[in-house]
């Protein structure tokens, strides 16, 4: 149950992050160059994850294998963090060439991810601070 819940939250988060990347046009976070592919990926991840997790009855007390409140919160946080971390790595790897071709800029925060990947933004930020 714990592993399944973790996987459920992780895959839903991965889908939602791609939805957001396309919606807010943070191309540096996208797995795909075409925006409609992000939406398809997001819908598939969220839909399949919800269907897979709720295909069986999940109303189980924590005394019989269900998750207590603090555990629910911890697993949710861990799965969300892993999804964000993997999104940053995968999108940086996929878009490595694309990001480099963009001009250097001094944008801060998510604004930078419109034209560069996460790791390129970090690199540029470090270079600026030197």
């Amino acid at each position, binding site marked *: 149950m714990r592993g399944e*819940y973790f996987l*459920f*939250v992780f895959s*839903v*988060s991965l889908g*939602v*992050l791609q*939805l*957001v*990347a396309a*919606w*807010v046009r*943070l191309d540096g976070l996208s797995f795909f160059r075409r925006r409609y592919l992000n939406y398809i990926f997001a819908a598939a991840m*969220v839909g399949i994850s*919800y269907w897979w*997790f*709720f295909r069986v*009855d*999940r*109303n*189980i*007390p924590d*005394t*019989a294998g*269900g*998750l207590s*409140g603090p555990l*629910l919160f911890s697993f*949710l946080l861990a799965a*969300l963090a892993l999804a964000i971390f993997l999104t940053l790595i995968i999108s940086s790897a996929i878009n490595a060439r694309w990001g480099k071709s963009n001009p250097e800029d001094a944008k*801060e*925060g*998510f*604004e*930078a*991810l419109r034209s560069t990947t*996460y790791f390129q*933004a*970090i690199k540029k*930020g470090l270079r600026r601070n030197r």
Partner: protein
Amino acid sequence: MVSLDERLFFLINGLAGRSEAVDGFMKLVGGEYFIPVAIVMVLLTMWFLGKDIQSREKNQRAVWYALVGVGFACAIVAIFNCFYDRLRPFEAYPGDVTLLFYQPTDPSFPANVAAVGFAFAMGAWFGNRKAGYVLFLFAILWSFARVYVGVHYPLDVLGGGAIGILASLAARGFLRLIEPLPTWILKGLRKLYLA
């Protein structure tokens, strides 16, 4: 008041067991996984939303209000539970309640799920009205489902909802009180390209 509460409970819980599809839906949305994960995904979306830095920061502050508000709400519910132990409907009226859920062992009043759901919604509402309304709808649905499946009285969820709303109001006040710490954290996250 209590009698009205119980009558309303039996009116809502009386709907259970009539339609397999509606029962299944209520069990799904009344559980601990479906709506909470959906709420967190709305907050995750809010974290990224905004036409510019200012509007995004407003959304991100609202996410803080919601998260801290939920923490406050859970603490208030835990304190309530130390002093007041209202029996669950299925304990008070064994045999008369259509129970579609497992039997929780904590007190009936106030409803923890309502406190959490409304705290999330109120916190989000401060930064983004549309997201706030969506989360209020989730909170109402979640709370109603808990009455429908037979684990809470309507007064439990009303009390929980009030606690959740007040907790997020308090969270907003608290985060404003400890300024500039939240601003520093947001600026730090922005430096790391995470906000």
